[in-house]
């Protein structure tokens, strides 16, 4: 061999050129895929075009080299020398294109950096947005949870207050600014004498006030500057016309501008309390008077007896002297009046004496008393209207004392009527309270309000001097109290039946009926 064969060079060149063409197409495929996947990516676009230039370089070079061998081996020797400058020129252009594109890379990189910065900024903003969204979601969840908790608490509270409102035995009501009742509890409605609270809703509160002045005071206090009223004692008219004593505490409801939007109030029933209080006061008076009477009667009775005895002796001795005899008779008469008063006082002081108790029929007592004083009543034009309930339960007590009470009350009524009128007598049984009620009423002029508080006071009388001792009602009250009962006076009466009958004053005696224990005691 005179040198080195060029065959391996040609072989590698041919295969290499072919491979270059194939691989450049493969690279182009990947570059095209990249650009398709993210067409807006600057880097991929740049790589695509760089790759295009590379492909052009590889193809021009590869085809040139391959064609060279093809033409030479095919024996076409003239073509390749003609094409060689074009192939080389294309290669040169491809080199320059690739180089230019490569030098262009810093600009692409700057663009990429800018885009990356923007992308990072966007990503950061997105991250913050997500974080804010997450926090908002947590906050929302917390808010929902809190709303649920508060709603539950509110429901419990509402239920509690609803229970208090519905279950309270006091009167609770709400009014609008015009004083119309907007809501009331069932107990309150029943207290006012209505079966259902819906009957009361919509009614004017004013209509329940017995006295207009009370309503005005209440309204001014609640809807006025003060805005509330506390422990205000008022007299209400019930549905049946009877009286209800209430103690009201109310608040005015105001809007943001301070205007009255209505009121809310709670009222306590004082009727029973007032009755008990009056009885207590009366009892205290009775006790005091009882002690006083007993002492006075005891101390005065003996001197009066002596004065009366000596006066009578003097009358016997000096009956011949007319003037003296008359004077002595006056002394005797006045002394006897004193004795009578003392006797009444003694009777009153002994009214608490526990006599023998028997079964007493109140209706029989009424009939007996009427039998005694019927003549007296008939002398004037006094008509007696009897409404005695049949089968009235018996009471345990002292028959005579009960009769004495009835007698006193009828006499009082007779005195109030004067020459004509009607006396109404009712007896009835209250099964709930287990007591019988005796009502003695008259159509007289009634008792003035200022005197109503004194009616049971000892020595209080409206009769002329010398005609009444003022102890009748006091004594009656004491007797009723001794029997465990109560006594009331109403002028005008509360009971619509009495009002319908034209009665102006009524005395009510409540006496307990016999219980099992009493039966044993009586027997």
């Amino acid at each position: 061999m005179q040198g080195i064969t060029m065959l391996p060079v040609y072989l590698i060149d041919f295969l290499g050129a072919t491979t270059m063409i194939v691989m450049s197409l493969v690279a182009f495929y990947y570059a095209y895929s990249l650009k398709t996947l993210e067409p807006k990516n600057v880097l991929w676009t740049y790589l695509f075009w760089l790759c295009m230039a590379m492909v052009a370089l590889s193809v021009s070079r590869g085809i040139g080299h391959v064609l060279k061998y093809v033409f030479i081996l095919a024996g076409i020797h003239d073509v390749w020398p003609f094409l060689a400058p074009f192939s080389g020129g294309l290669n040169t252009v491809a080199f320059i294109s690739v180089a230019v594109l490569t030098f262009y890379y810093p600009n692409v990189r700057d663009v990429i950096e800018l885009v990356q910065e923007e992308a990072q900024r966007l990503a950061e903003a997105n991250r913050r947005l997500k974080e804010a969204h997450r926090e908002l979601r947590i906050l929302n969840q917390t808010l929902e949870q809190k709303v649920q908790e508060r709603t539950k608490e509110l429901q419990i509270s509402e239920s509690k207050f609803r229970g208090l409102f519905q279950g309270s035995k006091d009167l609770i009501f709400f009014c609008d600014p015009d004083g119309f009742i907007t809501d009331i509890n069932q107990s309150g409605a029943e207290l006012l004498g209505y079966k259902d609270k819906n009957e009361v809703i919509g009614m004017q509160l004013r209509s329940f006030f017995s006295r207009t002045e009370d309503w005005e005071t209440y309204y001014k206090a609640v809807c006025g500057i003060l805005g509330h009223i506390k422990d205000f004692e008022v007299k209400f008219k019930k549905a049946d016309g009877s009286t209800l004593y209430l103690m009201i505490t109310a608040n005015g409801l105001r809007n943001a501008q301070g205007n009255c939007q209505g009121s809310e109030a709670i009222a306590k029933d004082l009727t029973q309390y007032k009755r008990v209080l009056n009885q207590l006061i009366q009892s205290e008076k009775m006790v005091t008077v009882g002690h006083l009477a007993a002492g006075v009667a005891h101390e005065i009775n003996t001197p009066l007896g002596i004065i009366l005895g000596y006066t009578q002796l003097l009358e016997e001795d000096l009956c011949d002297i007319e003037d003296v005899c008359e004077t002595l008779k006056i002394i005797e008469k006045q002394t006897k009046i004193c004795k009578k008063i003392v006797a009444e006082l003694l009777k009153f002081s002994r009214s608490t004496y526990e006599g023998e108790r028997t079964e007493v029929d109140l209706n029989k007592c009424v009939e007996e008393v009427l039998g005694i004083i019927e003549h007296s009543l008939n002398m004037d034009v006094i008509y007696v209207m009897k409404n005695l309930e049949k089968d009235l339960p018996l009471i345990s007590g002292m028959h005579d004392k009960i009769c004495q009470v009835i007698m006193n009350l009828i006499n009082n009524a007779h005195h109030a009527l004067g020459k004509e009128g009607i006396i109404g007598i009712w007896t009835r049984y209250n099964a709930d309270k287990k007591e019988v009620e005796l009502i003695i009423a008259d159509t007289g002029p009634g008792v003035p309000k200022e005197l109503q508080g004194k009616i049971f006071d000892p020595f209080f009388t409206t009769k002329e001097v010398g005609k009444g001792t003022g102890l009748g009602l006091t004594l009656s009250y004491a007797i009723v109290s001794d029997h465990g009962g109560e006594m009331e006076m109403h002028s005008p009466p509360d009971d619509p039946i009495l009002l319908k009958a034209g009665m102006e004053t009524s005395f009510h005696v409540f006496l307990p009926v016999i219980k099992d224990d009493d039966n044993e005691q009586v027997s």
Partner: protein
Amino acid sequence: MNRFIKFILCIFFVLSPSLALAVQTHGPPEGLYVHMMAHIFFSAAIIFLLYLLYKRPLGTGPAWKHMKISLILWLLWNIDTFIVHFLAGGLPYEAFEIPDKGFLHTILAHPLDAKRIIYYVGKFDNLLCVPAICFLALSLKSFRDEVRERLMAQKAGGEV
């Protein structure tokens, strides 16, 4: 006045023309020189790009590694081909003996000095440019796979 002088000068130049020799012709070696300068230009661009990729890398994944390898191989190929082009110009016509059997049996004749040996070895430039284009393809494939995975992950994340 100035206008008049300008007019006179114009008339003078128009009425007394001579050969301009403005268009120069280019001899045969110029194409080779341009080609070699293009190799240098290409090499400089690759060096510049490699410098940027090392100095301010956009990424460090396999795609970028393949890209760098590809660029280095392209650089070596450029150097190789430049040398071969340079040496080819210096080899005499007698350096190649083409026997009657044909072109494929061409022999690089003696004396096999350094120039000829380097030329001979340098002619295997395909051993550099083929791996270079292969690594470029690999790099692009890696880029494509990365993008696909990222897009799928985004899609999956978006659905969630």
